[in-house]
């Protein structure tokens, strides 16, 4: 624990409160993400994992609480600053959320074109580079999202998230819907990209294999807040019915986490 305490905090969420109508999603939720780590967020269905991620990336305005990214309170940013800060993180949505009227390569060029005035040639080259970095074949570049498989769409979505060389990458269920081989390839890809590009990764997942293979720390969302953050070994020791069920259940044993 002492090791993490000295590290720079890039995302700091304090006393977050989110509510839809009478339904409280988050209440007094705190979480820290350190630079250079892969943090996995787990929780049962409907515990507000996606809502938390959307709050952090400023797609949802929380009712209460502060969210700081790189020490900047997101609620206090002006329009111009906000777009400048947005450049520093990339988001991969569950099914890639690629623009369906653009090819994969053009999708990757969208953020580059939005922020910078680069030559056409350089845009093509950078897109091709990112396509290769996420493990897509060069042939995928001129294809439209509807012509790709689910796994390829996820990779293309990741390539677009990486277009601006962000410092933080948010991944929403990166391995959901992939076959185990594809999923473990994706896990390796995340880990490898994190190492070569020095990324901080915040990932929402259900996949025990992913948690086991790539996450440095895991945060558990239950009872409207983050009840515990720690390594897998620490979580196995943690005494909470859901955490127990999750990390010591049959699937966990199959993933080689316990037993």
């Amino acid at each position, binding site marked *: 624990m002492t090791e993490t305490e000295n590290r720079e905090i890039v995302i700091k969420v304090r006393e977050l409160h989110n509510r839809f109508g009478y339904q409280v999603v988050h209440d007094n939720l705190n979480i820290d993400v350190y630079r250079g780590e892969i943090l996995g967020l787990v929780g049962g269905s409907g515990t507000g994992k996606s809502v938390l991620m959307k709050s952090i990336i400023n797609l949802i305005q929380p009712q209460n609480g502060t969210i700081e990214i790189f020490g900047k309170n997101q609620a206090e940013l002006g329009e111009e600053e906000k777009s400048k800060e947005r450049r520093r993180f990339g988001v991969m949505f569950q099914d890639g959320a690629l623009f369906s009227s653009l090819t994969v390569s053009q999708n990757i060029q969208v953020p580059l074109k939005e922020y910078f005035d680069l030559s056409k040639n350089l845009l093509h080259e950078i897109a091709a580079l990112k396509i290769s970095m996420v493990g897509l*074949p060069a042939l995928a570049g*001129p294809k439209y999202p509807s012509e790709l498989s689910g796994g390829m769409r996820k990779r293309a979505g990741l390539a677009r998230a990486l277009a601006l060389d962000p410092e933080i990458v948010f991944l929403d269920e990166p391995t959901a819907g992939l076959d185990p081989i594809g999923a473990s390839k994706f896990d390796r890809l995340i880990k490898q990209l994190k190492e070569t590009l020095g990324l901080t990764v915040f990932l929402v997942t259900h996949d025990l294999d992913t948690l086991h293979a790539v996450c440095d720390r895991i945060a558990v969302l239950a009872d409207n807040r983050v009840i515990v953050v720690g390594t897998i070994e620490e979580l196995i020791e943690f005494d909470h019915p859901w955490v127990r069920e999750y990390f010591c259940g049959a699937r966990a044993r199959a993933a080689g986490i316990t037993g």
Partner: protein
Amino acid sequence: MDQTAHGTTVHFGGDWVVDFGAELEHVIEDMEQIPRSVRLEFSHIGKMDTLGAWLIYKLLRNVEKEHGAIKYHGLSTDYQDLLVTIKENDNPAKSSPPRRNPVISLAEDIGFATLSILESFGQLLGFVGLVLVRFLGSFRDIKRIKWTALVFQIEQVGLRAMPIVGLIAFLIGAVIVNQGAVQLRQFGLEIFVADMLTVSQLRELGVLLTAIIVAGRSGSAFTAQIGSMVLNEEVAAMETIGINPIDVLVLPRVLALVPAMVILTLFADIMGLIGGGLMAWISLDISPAVFADRVQAALVVPTTYWVGLIKAPVFGVVIAISGCLEGLSVKGTAESVGRHTTKSVVQSIFLVIVLDAVFAVFFTAIDW
């Protein structure tokens, strides 16, 4: 650039990041021709991201291809790793699908368009047959008709279309009287605007206008509703459960549009006559009683009335069937829903007008 006894050294400095992408690209382009004796010195580079690394990698690659290996120094190990990653991923991918020869692609497009028109006509006929079979079959198995859906659809496409259909028919009736009177005044026959309006409204305009409004309003809605259900795989789910999508989605809509079109046409006829009568009263001083007399006189031959009304259910079937067929033909993306919605509206209006012409020839032939 330094000249020393050992040769030329080029110093790279500053941040090699995407923010300065355009400038960096120029710098690199200008350096492509450097001789291999040059030393590259990277120790002053501040930050470097994948774009900067890509440009430096490209410079090294191109110079090496021309002149063989080149010496460089001072790159931190992190950035050397990044260069290695870049090198592994130098894997050119195209951005857009390949361009085709314009002449050939024009010919190809014409060919495909012709085929697709024939194909969609064939599809439509096939679909009419399919719906007919399911419809006739439902007489044997009355449970197959979804009464709730049918009533709901009648409300949606009939009752809720009444305000707009009524308003438009009313206005068109008024306009016809207004414009017709200008022409008839030259002969002093203004009173015959009533006959003219009755014949044109009841035989043609009432039903045609109603059909066009319904195609734009309900035909497009059918395509969009069914199309998004296809995208959401609801239609596939129905089939796996053993529900026939034709029974649940298509038949209620087709069966609803038949009575709805008849009632709407009747309503449009009445509103058109009212609009015309009002206009005649206000601008031509023809009293409603006289106007009504003329209308009745024009209706001595009842075929005028029936010619319009007989077409209504046929148009209803055409609009509903092409709307549903296009909805079921949606594939892949949300964009496809839009494309098919446009196609269903254009196709149903086209078919309505073609059928109207056929009816006109037919009714003339039988002297109606």
